[in-house]
């Protein structure tokens, strides 16, 4: 009992669920099912759960499609916060230069050969905070959604 005050002073340890999926067609849907169950557990409403699922799909298919990761795996961590759910998507691929990514615009995409390039922009818009770290050892995308 003597150290109860120091215990209280500690940061609460957040519960975490970790999922590692192989780079296989549609495996992102397994991750969204896991996410859905966690977010329901946290009492997120259906719309917010759906937005997390969509952002998660985008982050995972980016790792599948672009990372060229030799281990062909994507690691996803769900951190169950008091007021938010943080999802960390990580690959050990080649990385990319974030500053070289152009913001897509529908007016430019129409009548232009290259119609892709929406994933990161969607993630930014569907989540409350997004942070990306990418280098030659891989890419880590950290995204959070508030419960409300």
């Amino acid at each position, binding site marked *: 009992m003597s150290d109860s005050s120091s215990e209280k002073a500690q940061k609460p340890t957040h519960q975490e669920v970790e999922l590692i999926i192989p780079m296989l*067609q549609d495996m992102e849907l397994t991750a*969204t099912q896991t996410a859905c169950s966690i977010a329901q557990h946290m009492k997120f409403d259906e719309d917010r759960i759906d937005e997390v699922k969509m952002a998660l799909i*985008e982050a995972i*298919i980016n790792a599948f499609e672009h990372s060229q990761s030799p281990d062909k795996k994507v690691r996803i961590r769900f951190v169950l916060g008091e007021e938010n759910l943080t999802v960390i998507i990580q690959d050990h691929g080649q990385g990319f230069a974030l500053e070289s990514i152009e913001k897509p615009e529908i007016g430019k995409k129409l009548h232009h050969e290259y119609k892709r390039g929406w994933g990161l922009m969607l993630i930014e818009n*569907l989540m409350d905070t997004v942070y990306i770290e990418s280098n030659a050892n891989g890419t880590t995308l950290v995204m959070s959604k508030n419960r409300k």
Partner: protein
Amino acid sequence: MSESFNLTLEEHTDYAIIRTEGYVNNLGGEKIGEAADQLIEQGVRKLILNFEKSNVVNSIGISILIEVIEKIVDVDGQIAFCYLTKTIEKTFNIMGLTQYAEIYATEAEAVEKLA
């Protein structure tokens, strides 16, 4: 090992309905693209995409939908979506698809407004 994706077509004299079922990813998007190409080739100028049984999309699939929108725009046609989930509708808004495509709650409403 992939999600099954299916679509059915309903063709009328001056419009057509594509009803999808399943994940609109690269594969689902391509199937929609092929169906739309054929309809436009046949002279269809008004296209309704009913997503009632497609609750999940990804941006690769949507990129193919942008191709379809482009082709419809090029022939001075019209394109409308119906039965979108809230999140898919929000996504279409974020991306600006709604500048070129209409969104209606139901298929009946889409038919009424377009036809």
